[in-house]
Structures are given as structure tokens and as C-alpha cells.
């Protein structure tokens, strides 16, 4: 069988190299190469979607290679695997990455200077983003997670707006701090968790990994619980599948459930969990670690904003679901109110800030903060609706925020001015553009028949109906739907309706061109399709989420 996931990761990386070494006079082909590669990626992602077994409980399209194995004496054996696979939570993200990176590639056609660097970095980013979503080994995940920083830093820092240096360094530092937290926990987990299969091999119980049986794993876990395995025979692992099983924790390790190590009132497990949450919340971003986002968006060129909002933010929410929650389920339940509260406050706080914005792009950046708050709220509820709704909301926001930033880019590419006050009554001069803006705004404010509605409704429903959370948190979050309508409609009123007036000559403001329509139209179709047929995504996520929820009972 074809190693599709590896192809997804390495195809863009290889072509990034190709672009790097091609002679200068091929510059005009760089964008076409990028488009072609992301196009193939999209086709592969769609293939994954259509051939995904919706009823299977295990990871699919798995690939596993031993990567690094180090005997560490009394510290046991260290093992890092090249382990890939997808389930119902990562598949929507992979699909979204395929869509967003492809659209971003079309949008990148407007980049005119230093094309070699730009398109090379863009492909590098594509590979590492997808790597992040398919990695099942935490070390590998972390590798891709860090690796994304590099292209993003340069894409904002070189091709960005006037304050690009500030924005890119801010983005860099924030994310780096976040990944530092994750790194700490990762090391702790590594020291605490063993791979029962490799350990069995190490103990000589079986000759080969293929001989493993479920009974044997239970037996190993039993021995581990009784402390009967010699330290040098313990094979430590970064495998996320093993980390999610409490039976694989070494008895006297710090992160074992029964460990009594504590700092003040917090157990080590609680601290580890909160560190992970903080690390991923920066990426999401949640209040109060969100301020890198508006700056990064305002300075980033349009396609980079599209990618940033469309897919990079989702890694935060994905990290909650893939790493923090399954490994520390009891902490997740314990801190549900805290996380939900941050989510609800993000919704309202982001919306209020959006209301105060004079820069269209900044307004949309804050609306992202608000919309990602729903994800946090839904995840915190630990209910089928909440978690499915959160994944749905991430997917939906990926599509809609990509559209929103493309639409801002349309105006910016014409006048280099995004101030809301600089325009009025655009509807009469740019009717098609206004049509798309109105559609996207209404979709973003959670109107039924668009994907955002499903995500918002069910994250709220989940949060309302879980015994874990007090009702007022949901009520607070629900205020976001009124405020959301407020800032979007107010912007529509100020910029698009009324009599035409602009600081710029009319000749500078032609309606959408063909390339812009090609980008926007399919996204609009997707937003509507996923609004009317939620099972398109829910059929994929349902089984995985049901299984995910069993960790919490």
C-alpha cells in the first residue's frame, strides 16, 4: 500500500528543495510548482477522506518505522518512532490543511518579490503542518510543531507589512514559549511511559513485535504495576497511543496517577496538564495569550494570513484533543470549568475587541479569537456534541476565516488600505465582491445553512448540557452570537452600504477578477455544503469522539 501520509509530508518538502536549487530563470515556474504540489496534496487528502473507514476504531493509514533506539542503562531504553496515522479527529484537519494550503497557493500568485524564498518556505510550511496532524509519536509531533515556526517567521518577517519585524518576532516568541511548555511535559511523559510491546521484546518474552497479543500487553502492564520489570528493560516511548493508556505509566514515575509528588496544592499531573493547555492555548489563541494574533495577521501577506487563520490555529485545538485530554483525562474533568471559562471569555472578549476595530483585517483577526473560543468551550464540555462540535467549528472556521482573509486581501491588493473608514457604499460599485463579503459575514456570524452554525450551536449545546460546567458559562458564551452579529453587520453597514464614497478613485476598485472568484467560490460552496449536510464531517468524527469520551468515565 502506498505510504500516503509520508507522501503528504515529504512531497512538499522535496519540492521545496527543488525550488531552492532551480536556476534563477525558472522563477516564473515556482508558483506553478507550488500550485501543482498543493493540488496533488489536496487530491491525496480527498482520497484519504473518501477511503477512510468511518466505523473503524483504530488509527488508519498507519506507518511505523523504528527511528531512534538508545539503550540508556539504568534509565531503560529510549525509543522514538516514525509513527503516522489518522483518526476521525485528525482527518478533518488534514483535509482542511489540503484545502487551505491549495487556496493559499492560488492566493500566493500575487507575491512578486523574492519568489524563490517565498514558495520554498510555503512548501516547507505545507509539509510540516500536515506532519503535525498525522504524527502519532509525540517527539515527531513536536518536531513538526517547531519546524512550522521557521517558515512562518520568515513568511511574515520578509513579505509582511510595515511592522513585520515586530509581528514576526512576537509570533515567534509566543509560539516558542508555548512549545517550551509542551517540551517540558513531553520529557516528563517520556520518562514515565513505556512501550509494552518493545518492553516485552526487551524482556525476551517475544522475539518480534509482530508476535504481540493483547494478553501479553495486559501481562506486561500487570508486571509494570507490580514493579517487577527491571529498569534497564523498560522501553520508554513517545508513542501517543501508549501515553493515552494509564496502565503504561511506570509505577514510581512522576506522572503516574498515584504519584504523590506535588508543588504546593498542585499535583505534578495537574501542572503537566495545565502546561500543555497553556502551550496549546497560545496557538489557539485564547485569552490572555492571544495578542500575537492580531499583529501577525495585520502584517502578514494575504496568503500567509489565510494559512495562519485557516489551519495553524487549529493545531491548538487539535493538541487539546490529541495530547492534553487523552493523557490527563482526570485533570481535564477537574479543570473543565477553568477551560470552559477561558473559552467563553475568549468568545466575548474577542467579539468586543472586534467591535472596536477600525482596521478590517484586525477586526477579522479578533473574530478568530472569538470563534476559536467556541472550540475551547466545546472541548471542555467533554460531551459528544461539544467535542464533535469543536472539531466541526475548527473545520468550519478554517474555511470561513480563509474566505474572510481572502476578502480583505482583495481590497488591500487594490488600495493598500484596510481602514473601515476609508470606504463606504462599496456594494454599488463592487456588487460581486459585496455579495461574497455578505455571504461570508453571515456564515461567520453563525447563520443556519452555513457550516459555522453547526459548530457554534453544538459546542454551546454540549457545554449547556454537561454536568461538568455551570450554566452561566454557556450563557456568557452564547452572548457571543449577538456580539458577532453586531460587529459583522456594523462593518457591512459602514463599508458596503449607503452611497458610494472612498478615499480612492473608482478606477482603483474593480470588482473581483477571475482568480479571486476561483478561490472564493469553492470555499463558499463548502461552507454551505457543510452547513446543510453536517454528516459529511460528523460521520468521520463520531466514532473517534465516542471512543475519546470513554477515557473520561
Amino acid at each position, binding site marked *: 500500500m502506498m505510504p500516503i501520509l509520508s507522501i503528504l509530508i515529504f512531497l512538499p518538502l522535496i519540492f521545496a528543495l527543488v525550488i531552492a536549487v532551480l536556476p534563477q530563470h525558472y522563477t516564473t515556474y515556482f508558483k506553478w510548482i507550488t500550485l501543482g504540489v498543493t493540488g496533488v496534496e489536496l487530491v491525496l487528502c480527498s482520497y484519504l477522506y473518501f477511503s477512510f473507514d468511518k466505523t473503524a476504531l483504530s488509527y488508519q493509514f498507519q506507518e511505523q518505522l523504528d527511528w531512534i533506539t538508545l539503550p540508556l542503562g539504568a534509565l531503560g531504553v529510549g525509543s522514538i518512532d516514525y509513527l503516522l496515522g489518522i483518526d476521525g479527529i485528525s482527518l478533518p484537519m488534514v483535509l482542511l490543511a489540503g484545502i487551505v494550503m491549495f487556496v493559499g497557493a492560488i492566493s500566493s500568485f500575487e507575491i512578486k518579490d523574492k519568489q524563490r524564498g517565498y514558495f520554498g518556505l510555503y512548501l516547507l510550511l505545507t509539509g510540516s503542518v500536515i506532519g503535525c496532524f498525522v504524527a502519532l509519536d509525540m517527539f515527531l509531533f513536536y518536531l513538526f510543531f517547531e519546524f512550522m515556526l521557521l517558515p512562518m517567521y520568515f513568511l511574515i518577517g520578509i513579505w509582511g507589512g510595515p511592522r513585520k519585524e515586530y509581528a514576526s518576532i*512576537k509570533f515567534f*516568541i*509566543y509560539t516558542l514559549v508555548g512549545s517550551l511548555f509542551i517540551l517540558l511535559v513531553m520529557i516528563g511523559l517520556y520518562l514515565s511511559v513505556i512501550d509494552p510491546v518493545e518492553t516485552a521484546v526487551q524482556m525476551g518474552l517475544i522475539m518480534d513485535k509482530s508476535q504481540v497479543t493483547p494478553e501479553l500487553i495486559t501481562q506486561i502492564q500487570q508486571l509494570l504495576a507490580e514493579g517487577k520489570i527491571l529498569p534497564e528493560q523498560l522501553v520508554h516511548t513517545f508513542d501517543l497511543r501508549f501515553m493515552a493508556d494509564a496502565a503504561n505509566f511506570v509505577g514510581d514515575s512522576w506522572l503516574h496517577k498515584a504519584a504523590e509528588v506535588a508543588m504546593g496544592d498542585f499535583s505534578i499531573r495537574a501542572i503537566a496538564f495545565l502546561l500543555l493547555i497553556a502551550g496549546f492555548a497560545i496557538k489557539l489563541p485564547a485569552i*490572555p495569550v492571544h*495578542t500575537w494574533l492580531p499583529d501577525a495577521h495585520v502584517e502578514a501577506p494575504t496568503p500567509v494570513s489565510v494559512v495562519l487563520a485557516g489551519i495553524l490555529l487549529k493545531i491548538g485545538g487539535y493538541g487539546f484533543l490529541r495530547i492534553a485530554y487523552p493523557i490527563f483525562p482526570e485533570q481535564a474533568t477537574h479543570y473543565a470549568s477553568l477551560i470552559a471559562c477561558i473559552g467563553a471569555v475568549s468568545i466575548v*472578549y474577542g467579539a*468586543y*475587541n472586534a*467591535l*472596536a*476595530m477600525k482596521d478590517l483585517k484586525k477586526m477579522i483577526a479578533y473574530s478568530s479569537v472569538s470563534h476559536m473560543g467556541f472550540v475551547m468551550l466545546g472541548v471542555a464540555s467533554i460531551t*459528544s*456534541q461539544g467535542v*464533535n462540535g469543536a472539531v466541526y467549528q475548527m473545520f468550519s472556521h478554517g474555511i470561513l476565516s480563509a474566505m474572510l482573509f481572502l476578502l480583505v486581501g482583495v481590497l488591500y491588493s487594490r488600495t493598500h488600505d484596510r481602514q473601515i473608514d476609508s470606504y463606504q*457604499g462599496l*456594494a*454599488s460599485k463592487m456588487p460581486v465582491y459585496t455579495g461574497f463579503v455578505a455571504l461570508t459575514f*453571515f456564515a461567520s456570524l453563525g*447563520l*443556519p*445553512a452555513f457550516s459555522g*452554525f453547526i459548530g457554534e*450551536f*453544538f459546542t*454551546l*449545546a454540549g457545554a*449547556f*448540557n454537561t454536568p461538568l460546567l455551570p450554566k452561566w458559562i*454557556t*450563557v456568557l458564551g*452564547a*452572548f457571543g*452570537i*449577538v*456580539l458577532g*452579529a*453586531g460587529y459583522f*453587520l*456594523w462593518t*457591512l*453597514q459602514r463599508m*458596503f*452600504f*449607503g*452611497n458610494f464614497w472612498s478615499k480612492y478613485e473608482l478606477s482603483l476598485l474593480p470588482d473581483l477578477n477571475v482568480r479571486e472568484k476561483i478561490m472564493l467560490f469553492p470555499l463558499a460552496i463548502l461552507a454551505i455544503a457543510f452547513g446543510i*449536510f*453536517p*454528516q459529511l464531517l*460528523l*460521520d468521520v468524527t*463520531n466514532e473517534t*469522539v*465516542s471512543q475519546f*469520551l470513554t477515557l473520561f468515565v
Partner: protein
Amino acid sequence: MNPVILIWLILLTPLVGFGVGMTLGRKQNAVVGLITTGFSGLALVTALALLFNNSLPQTHHWVFDWFSFGSMPVRFGFLADPLTLMMLVLVNFIALLVQLFSQDYMHDDPDKYRYFSFLQLFVFSMLGIVLTDNLFVMYAFWELVGLSSYLLIGFWYQKATAVQAAKKAFLVNRVGDLGFLLGIFGVYFYNNGSTDITTLGTTAMPTVVGLLLFGGCMGKSAQFPLHTWLPDAMEGPTPVSALIHAATMVAAGIFLVARIHPILTVDAQVVIATVGCITMLLGSAYAIFQTDIKKTLAYSTVSQLGLMLLGLGTEASVFHLLTHAFFKAGLFLSAGAVIHALHHAGHHHEFDAQDTRLMGGLRKKLPFTFACYLIFSASLAGLPLFSGFLSKDTILANLFHLGESNPYFTYLGFAVLLGVFLTAFYMTRQVLTVFFGEFRNTLFAVSTVHEGSWKLKMPLALLAILSTGFVFSWNPFNAGHVWFWHFLNPMMEEIAENHTIALVSVVVGLAGILTAYLTRNKVITYSLPTFDGLYDFLLVQPTLTLAKQLQRFDVQIVDFAVNSLVSLQVALATLAAWLDSTFIDGVPNGLATGAGIIGKVTRSVQGGKVQVYIVSALLGLGLLILLLVM
């Protein structure tokens, strides 16, 4: 034909109409209106076919799976009970008349295609609300109604006031929807994870759930304190007002209350009736002070919606919803005819064609419109022989009946009588101002005003017929004989005849008319302050201020904290660099320097000068001798 196919046809016809209209676009401006009108005609015929479909039992319920969460399915379905059937016919009928009327009214608009397409979307959303069996799905269509109203109220998007009004309508409705949304969550919670309407009432629910759901009604049906959007919504084209005020949108709220009636506790009913009562009195009071022909009607709608709520979502409410739909659609379309006629006559002049102070004496030039207007007004005022009399009396009788066990409802009944008086008063006053006296517009002569074509007249005629009492009861003086009761609910108890109340209400109405007539020459120059200023002060400005403050907080506190943290790091780094260069590097550097100095010193000792060596040697020798001797 299978009823479910008919239902699908009814629901999807306007959606297809919307799609077709938008696809044809401005290039086919002329035909879009005809096509969509045809679509509505088709839908109406289908709805009638369904109504007279003998195979349909009293209540029919179809359920389809939509999607699911884990093992929890989310379903949607159709519920066809008499209430639904009535609404289906009503919505399509009014929509058809409105579109017919609009053929002339919107004849010269360059964006006609958009207008007719949006009307279809509006009808589609409303039919969705009417047909669904499920509160979640209803919420979805509910929001689509909000969208449609936004698009239609703001249809003339170059007009700043229209856009403002559209935004206001949407936002105020969203506030109500917030309650609706939470109410649905509540139903889901208490009703074993189901939001199916047919299961409502099988489990007990706290009062608050019903009241939260009622929040949705307060938004759409413009109940106090969320009533402020409705008068502003007059910024849309007049036929749209007719549609909004009669069959769609505002009717949705009353319909919702009728649907959730089983879960409304007694406390909830008291709250609802109280809100309705306040709204009724407030609306009719405001109506008196309006000089815009449409605004009087708008406030009158607010008031009548309050009256419908005083029927508490029972059959009485629904009946008033029906009769009101006909006479209010008629009033708006007649007002539209007046505006259209004045607009045509005076299109060379700048003037407000809706200002009643610039009208007067129009009965001679617009006799047909006048006659219809009289009928509609009489029905609104609740005079005998007209439909409004029957429905209003039922609500009154119902209230006094409830009052026997709870005197609070008796007081509400008296409030309704006051409302009747006010209604008769402002309607008479408006009829006198518009159609009697002298023509007060000096810009052009009244002789240039003339009636419109049959497309304008026919809808009026039909609605006028439907506003009479004979249509609903063979005895138009007696609400107990209305055939509608049997249609809506064959199990319903016979409504007790209460001649006293009927008589009193007629007397009160006539008193209102008389008062209006006697005070016809009094010009009202003052107006009631609206709630807009208050809301602006209490809600809008604080929200915007809070938004600005939070933005400042974001920049000055959050960002400042982060930047300070970074600055602190930079400062620490500088300090470290200084320490590094001064001390850490200082030690080896110092050592090196020390070595250098020593080297220099010692080098100077070994300067290669023989005299120095000799002196040193001698000194050393001297020292040695000294040591040895001592």
C-alpha cells in the same frame, strides 16, 4: 398524491424561486417577478391541495434522520396539523398577493430581481418554521427569517436609514434568539434529549424554559421591550411591510407560542400575558402620535401582536393571527397604493409621500382604495360584521373566563378594552386625515392623483372580502359559531357566548371612533419619546464603550505586560552581557592583563641592560650575606 410529496413541493418551491431569481439576475429583471409570482401561485395551489387532501388525518407527522452525534440522532420532520395547514395557505396567499401588488409597485426598480428573489427566500424560511416538527430546526429557519428580513428591510441599501433599520431588526431579533437558543438547550435537557414539538408537555419543565423560548417570540413578534425594530422596519418597500406584518416574521412569534403552549406553566402564562398587555397598550399609544401613514400601521401591528399574546397561544390567538393577517396586509397594501399614487402624481417634486399631513381628501380620487381601507380599518377596530370583531371578542371572552379563577386576567381584560378604544381612535383619526378634508400638499394638484392598475386593486379586493365576518361565521355577531374552531381543533369545547362583553367592546370601539371624530381638527404636535434613545443610552453606547475599553485593555495592559516581559528579558540580557564582559570575561581578561603587567614588569627587569643585572646581583648578594650573618 402522497401528502409528504406535497409538503416537499410547498417548501422547496420558494427556495427554487430564490435560486432561479438570483441566477437570472439583473439582466432578466423584467421576468423574474413574473416567474416568482408564478412560483408562489404554484405553492398556494399545492398548499390548498394539501388542505383538501382527504387522506390526511387530523395530525400527521413525518420524521427523517438528518445527522447524529454518537448514537444520538438529530432529526427533522414535518408536522402537518390544522395550524400548519392554515399557516401554509396563509403565507402563500399573502405572498402571492404581495408579489402581484409589487409588479406595479416595484415596476421601475433596477434591482427588482433581487427584491423578488428575497421575497421567495423569506417565504421559504417562514414555511420552514411552519412545517418543522422540531425546535432545533425551527431555530435554523427562524434565523433565516431574520436574514430575509435584513435583506428586504435594507433592500434600498444606498439609503442609510434603511441599512440602519435592517441591522437593528437583525440585532434586536438576535437578542431574542439568544433566549430561544438557551430555551432549546433547556428543552433538550428536560425532555430526554429531544426537541421534538410533539413530545412537548410529556415531561414537566420549569417556568424558565418556557420563558426563554418566549424570548424568541419577543424578538420576532416585536414584544416589549424588543418592539423597537418594527417601526423602523418601515424603511423597506411597502409590500414587504405587508408581508412582514401579516403572514411572515411577526406571525412566527405567535406561532411559536402556540407550538410551545403545552410547556407553558401558569406563571409563564401570566408573564406572557403581561408582556402582551404592555405591548398592546404601548403600541396603540404610539400609533396615535405618528404622522407617517406606515408608522401608524406599524405601531398598530405591535399593539395587535400584544393582543394576540393575550390569547396565550390558544386557538383564540391563532384566529386573531389569521384575521389580522388579512386586514393588516390589506391596510399596508392600501397604504402602499396611496403612496404609489401620490408618488406617481408628484414625482417631479421632492416630498414625503408617506406623510399624512400632506394628504387629505383622497377619497374622491382614490375611491376604491378608500373603500377597502375603510373595511380594513373597521376590522382592525373590531366592529361587528368584520373579522376582527370575532377574533378580538374571543380573546376578550377568554380573558374574562380565565378571570373567574384568577382576577389578574380580568384586569387584563379591561386593559384590552382600553386597547380597543385607542385602536378605534387612531384608525379613525388616520382615515379622517388621509381621506377626508382638503388635500394639503401644495406642490401639485389633487386632480393628478389616480388609482393604479388591476394588479394593485385585485389584492385589495380579495383581502377586503376576507376581512369581513361572513367569511368566518354564518353569524358574524357571534364568535362561537366560527367554523374555524372546528377546523383548528374538533375537540375544542364550545366557546361560551358572552353577549355582554361583545356589546361592551362594540360600545367602547364606537366611543373611540366618536372621540376621534370630535377631535378631528386638533393637531397633535408633540410626540412620545421612543425607547431608542433609552436603549442607545443603556445598551448601545455602553457596549461600544466597553468594546473600546477592552481594546485599550488589550493594547495597554495585555500587550504591555507581554512587551514588558520581553523588555525585561532584553534588560536581563543586557545585564548578563555586561556581567559577562565585566566579570566573567573580566576574570580571564584580568588574569591576562595581570599576566601582561607582570610580564611587563618582569620584562623590564630583564631589559638586557648589563648594569641593571650587575646592580641586581650585587643587591641580591648583599641580601644573602645579611641573612646568613643574622
